[in-house]
């Protein structure tokens, strides 16, 4: 399967007074899985729909392998799509759903059925061919939908939050499988999601969108460790903004002096960006901090700690340690010795403890 390069060039789209896309520029390399990540209303689905042909941009163009397809009708585009809601045709069984596209192209029945069976095996459902969508679970339906999208050997695969209707466990297995399949087929894939964990775990690169614009596009590790903007830092994972004092190449924060990663700001007063897992917490009766809230998440527990000067810090501790950090415990905190990101002082002040990202 040869895969295509996809380019979005200066895409603009407005619906009434809301701007869904505001000059989106993005290039997706052949064979790459790119995740479009952002809060709802950031334009990620609109971008995907422009590529699928269900939406016309007001300005800009969509290119597949250099060819402008902006005005090509949806049924003549070479892109398979999996939808957020269950989209299997209720009147057809799984096999006929998968072979629908081949039927449109008038492929002979025997060939159609053989190919459908092959695809159902590919998505791990070799024996459901005769079942109707209402006899399948949500996860199975999305697998069949994936098989259907791949049936015509498209050069681009579009996934519009295909996992969001599924329960947590199925979601994780299916996303691993989609990734495995995508790697083995080498198909260019654009995956729209609002779930940062999904984006980070599956994608080669993650494009973070905000208000119809691209904030940052980078591989997951870079995105997490070196967010280009404060928005990315806060949207992807949680981030502490701690008051720091810059001097030369170092910054003093919470009594520790750490090297600055990247360019130092001009002002001496700055925000130091620290991930909760880079905050070290030890119980200490003499400590400056008090645990305010502890939320247990299984492998980790996230603590909200208030320091003597009123600063609030989020810190992650291993789940098995959570009993030692019950709310009200006095603690001492330190930071992992590694270069930190520094940004200009934000308006919100020092105690900008970030809201839980999962809620977004």
């Amino acid at each position, binding site marked *: 399967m040869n895969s295509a390069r996809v380019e979005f060039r200066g895409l603009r789209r407005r619906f009434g007074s809301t701007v869904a896309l505001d000059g989106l520029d993005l290039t997706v390399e052949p064979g790459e899985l790119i995740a479009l990540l952002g809060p709802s209303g950031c334009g990620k689905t609109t971008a995907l729909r422009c590529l699928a042909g269900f939406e016309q941009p007001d300005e800009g163009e969509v290119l597949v392998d250099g060819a402008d397809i902006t005005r090509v009708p*949806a049924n003549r585009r070479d*892109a*398979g799509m999996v939808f957020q*809601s269950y989209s299997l045709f209720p009147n057809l069984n799984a096999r006929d759903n998968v072979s629908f596209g081949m039927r*449109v192209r008038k492929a002979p029945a025997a060939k159609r059925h053989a190919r459908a069976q092959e695809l159902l095996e590919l998505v791990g459902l070799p024996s459901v061919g005769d079942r109707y969508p209402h006899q399948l679970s949500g996860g199975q339906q999305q697998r069949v939908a994936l098989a259907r999208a791949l049936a015509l050997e498209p050069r681009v695969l579009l996934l519009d939050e295909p996992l969001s209707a599924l329960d947590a466990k199925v979601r994780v297995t299916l996303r691993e499988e989609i990734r495995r399949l995508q790697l083995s087929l080498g198909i260019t894939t654009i995956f729209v999601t609002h779930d940062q964990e999904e984006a980070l775990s599956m994608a080669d690169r993650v494009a973070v969108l905000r208000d119809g614009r691209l904030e940052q596009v980078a591989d997951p590790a870079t995105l997490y460790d070196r967010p280009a903007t404060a928005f990315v830092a806060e949207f992807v994972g949680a981030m502490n903004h701690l008051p720091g004092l810059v001097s030369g190449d170092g910054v003093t924060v919470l009594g520790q002096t750490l090297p600055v990663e990247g360019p130092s700001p001009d002002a001496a007063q700055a925000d130091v960006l620290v991930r909760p897992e880079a905050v070290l917490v030890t119980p200490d009766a003499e400590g400056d901090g008090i645990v305010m809230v502890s939320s247990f998440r299984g492998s980790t527990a996230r603590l909200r700690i208030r320091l003597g000067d009123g600063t609030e810090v989020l810190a992650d501790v291993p789940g098995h340690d959570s009993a030692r950090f019950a709310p009200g415990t006095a603690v001492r905190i330190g930071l992992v010795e590694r270069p930190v990101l520094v940004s200009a002082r934000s308006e919100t002040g020092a105690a900008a403890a970030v809201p839980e990202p999962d809620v977004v």
Partner: protein
Amino acid sequence: MASLTPQVTPQVTTQAATGTAPARGGRPRQRGATAARSRVWRGVVLVLAAVYFLVPLIASFVFTVKVPDQGFSLDAYGQIFSAEGFGGSLLLSLGLGVATIVLVLLLTLPAAVAVRLGAPRLRPVLEVVCTLPLVVPPITFVAGISTVLRWGPDYLATTPLYQTIIAVQNPDFPVVLVLAYVVLALPFAYRSLDAGLGAIDVRTLSEAARNLGASWPHVLLRVIIPNMRSAMASASFLTLALVLGEFTIARLLSFETFPNWIYRISGSQAQVSVAVSVFSLLITWLLLLALSSAGARQRSGS
């Protein structure tokens, strides 16, 4: 339409009866007694409704089979088929029904789909337009139609317009009745189809089909219509029931449809006319059964 009411109303009454149960079941201690009492009331309502609908039916039936001084006889039913005009008028009504169904579906289905996909904001408008015929009394409607049909100055006699007006009034198959019935059936057909469209995710399904290379006609024929079968069946049934029972318009335009034929022979052969009414009720029920079981098969298959 008369044949429709006995079908619909028992449902309504049972709903009304069950509706009283939760209102009374407020205090758990009394629930047993309340349930028993609501059962009793349910029975009472059911019996009352049954009496209301069955008494006229039974009375009609008894009237047709009881010949004075002779006792029981099914002669009236035997005479139906030999009665002059029976076959012709029944076929005419069925033909009008089929033509109306085809036309009303051709009009409303694409409109309902297009509004759902392309202009959701126009949906209330379409709904109001399609409901209007319920508000306009048939007598007003037919007065308007007959005024238009009677208008035809001589100097237009050779024009296609005039000939069209003549052609639609062909008593063998009055197209003008089909047109009128399409308007009358709009509310029922539109409601059924709209409910059917609401039950499937038209947008996602058609986008999925488009994405797989289907053209718009293909989407409509292969994706939307197959999933609308039960809604289309119910729209068809309601339309057919309406056409088989419609009296006012056909009467005032002087076409001998089935109800008009019944009316005409009731003057000379009272017993036969009532027998025909009972008979036509049976036919309509059979059609309903056939259509609704077709719909049910479709539902269980999907």
